[in-house]
């Protein structure tokens, strides 16, 4: 590739000028090859080794003296074996009482038509509201800080935003939990929490799954 010392060819001809014609050029090709090999190695290993993560905050255990907070628009997901999800809305009622009939759980799965569609239906309004704000922000009718504040307000809207409770039984996998949280994040849900399953809920799931 690169030129190798040609000066050496004149060696025998003029004895006097030998010293001047001696070339100091070295073939650098192997060195360059090595340099780039190392470069490639370090570039690849340093950029691809940083793991990505999602941040998650768990609730502090409730203080027994605190007043019991009533969840208004609650949706509870119960995760179980074979990637199945059961859910019910509102509060849990073991038996029918004055407020309404006994809780029945419905089944979902992690497919596009099931969970994704369910979440999309429930949270369409959030996305519509945020889109309105987006348009305003783009049209420069709104400051950046106002936008952020309003988005936050929408996400935790008292009357319309749902609170999602995620509960798992002994057979649910970690992947199920992450997938569900991921779906909530995708749908810009503001309020969700992972908590312990109740015995009555577990019984209900077990009757459905037969185990």
């Amino acid at each position, binding site marked *: 590739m690169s030129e190798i010392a040609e000066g050496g060819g004149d060696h025998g001809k003029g004895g006097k000028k030998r010293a001047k014609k001696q070339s100091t050029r070295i073939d650098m090709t192997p060195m360059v090859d090595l340099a780039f090999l190392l*470069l490639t190695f370090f570039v690849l290993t*340093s950029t691809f080794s940083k793991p990505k993560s999602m*941040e998650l905050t768990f609730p502090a255990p409730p203080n027994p003296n605190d007043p019991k907070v009533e969840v208004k628009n609650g949706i509870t997901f119960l995760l179980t074996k074979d990637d199945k999800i059961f859910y019910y809305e509102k509060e849990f009622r073991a038996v029918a009482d004055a407020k309404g009939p006994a809780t029945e759980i419905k089944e979902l799965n992690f497919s596009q038509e099931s969970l994704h569609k369910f979440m999309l239906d429930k949270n369409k309004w959030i996305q519509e509201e945020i889109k309105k704000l987006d348009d305003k922000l783009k049209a420069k009718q709104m400051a950046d800080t106002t936008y952020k504040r309003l988005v936050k307000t929408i996400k935790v809207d008292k009357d319309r935003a749902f609170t999602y409770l995620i509960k798992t039984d002994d057979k649910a996998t970690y992947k199920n939990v992450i997938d569900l*949280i991921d779906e909530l994040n*995708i749908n810009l849900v503001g309020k969700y929490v992972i908590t312990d399953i109740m015995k009555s809920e577990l019984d209900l799931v077990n009757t459905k799954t037969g185990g």
Partner: protein
Amino acid sequence: MSKKPSKGGAPALDMTPMVDLAFLLVTFFMLTAAFRMAEPVVVDPPSSIGEITLPDNHIMVTIDDKGRVFFGINNPTAKMAALEKMGQKYGVAFTPAQIKKFSGLASFGVDLKDLARYIDAGEKERTNFQPMKGVPNDTLKNPQLKDWIAFAGTEAVKAYNDAKEKAQAAGADFKAEKPRYAIKCDGGTKYIFAKDAIKAFTDLKIYQFNLITTLEGGGTVLNPHP
């Protein structure tokens, strides 16, 4: 010298600047690269849309598909101090050489009483180390995981504060991040194992975590905004 281009010969090209640049970059990447020791276990975390890069200063709990817990601290100073504290609490003595060697190791998943043997073992023996049952996480009888987290957390915060004070005293910019707690769990692990590990954290009033996930590549969740 290269005045006369010989017929058929390759044209001479001065490669010096390119070589300079290449070596400059090599040096840069070599110095910035942090080498990691081989992890004792391979876990395959689930995918998500989470794009937060894990901060360098972290304390990581890894859980493999069998539910074994592995513990790792990124900060060498905190790691050494935490090992000393653990040794004192559980009455296991470590030599200074062992403590020094421990700071360079990746995460580990052995009982504290086997740890000295684990540190002294060679690289190859370490992967097949027995018994590797994970860090004990028995809240009542043997809460080693909880103690590790507690000591490592305190020491990492202390190291952070020391570095901060030092930088401020010297009038330099201080850019390091506070230590964070990360959980890396295999997708196929039963959630209850992760829950037990999280319980160790919440018992210590640590509620915020970075859950390690791989970047979303298809799977169950597709384009959310069609």
